[in-house]
């Protein structure tokens, strides 16, 4: 018996990989506004589930630290060294990451999240397998909505 998978779609869009503890989030590269050092987080500015705020271009951005199940945590481990500030229009979000990498010249075979895995409010839209790792395709707006609901 042959089986055709749920429709996969190859994309050559440029992406950034946001590495959490063991989960890797894949976001469009153009959604990355800036990268800042986690050492510059001002923890006295924590609010609304964030671990603090970081300054970039004369503005302060609340920084969120997500566990591998994407729940906002209030204590940031030392291994999370980078703050990725994402922006779409006027909406911004800063995530603490172990590291951030760009994927260029990589054709990803994105597969929609299987129907049986989907849950309401999940920001994960698709999956891709890149070598030994799984990349979870999401977007800044989906992550922002999730954090607003979960924090």
């Amino acid at each position, binding site marked *: 018996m042959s089986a055709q998978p749920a429709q996969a779609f190859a994309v050559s869009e440029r992406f950034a990989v946001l590495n959490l503890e063991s*989960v890797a989030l894949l976001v469009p590269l153009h959604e990355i506004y800036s990268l800042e050092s986690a050492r510059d987080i001002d923890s006295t500015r924590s609010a609304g589930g964030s671990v603090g705020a970081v300054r970039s271009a004369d503005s302060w951005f609340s920084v969120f630290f997500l566990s591998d199940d994407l729940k906002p945590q209030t204590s940031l481990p030392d291994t999370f060294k980078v703050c990725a500030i994402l922006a779409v229009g006027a909406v911004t979000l800063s995530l603490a990451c172990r590291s951030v990498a760009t994927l260029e010249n990589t054709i990803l075979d994105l597969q929609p999240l*299987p*129907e049986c895995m*989907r849950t309401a409010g999940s920001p*994960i839209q698709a999956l891709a397998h890149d070598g030994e790792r*799984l990349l979870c395709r999401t977007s800044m707006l989906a992550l922002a909505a999730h954090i607003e609901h979960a924090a």
Partner: protein
Amino acid sequence: MTDSTGDAWLLQLTGSYRAAIGLREMLYVLPEEPVSHLVPLSRPHAARVMVWQSQLIPLIDLTVFLGGDPAPDARRMIGIVSCAAGNDSKSTSRLGGLMISRTPERIQVWDHQACGLPPAPAQWRSIAASCFRHPDHGPVPILDLAAILLPN
């Protein structure tokens, strides 16, 4: 009225539950659970994916769906199963990896073996198409793979 028969696979799930699927619904059996990856915020019984023939497919632990505890990794085998998706003009398939604890047993099921679903757990009603009485194991639900892989 004649008593017809169909070929099926008898599955031992990772807990004490048994279930059956049609012969053609099982594509392959992996003797050991392969490397799998956690997908955040997915359903508890379908929280991981694995790669099979270059495709990412969900790993399904029906024991968890039925309310039981997940089995230790060492006891898992994976049955790659398939069901049709979409209408006739644009039909595709959905694949899943069912966690099982032993090699599936090929059996024949006769019409006269039809029986009601076990009363518990109630979750059987949402994933079973029918049920038959096995001479040794009693009522065995026949899985509706579309209900598992393509839930509403």
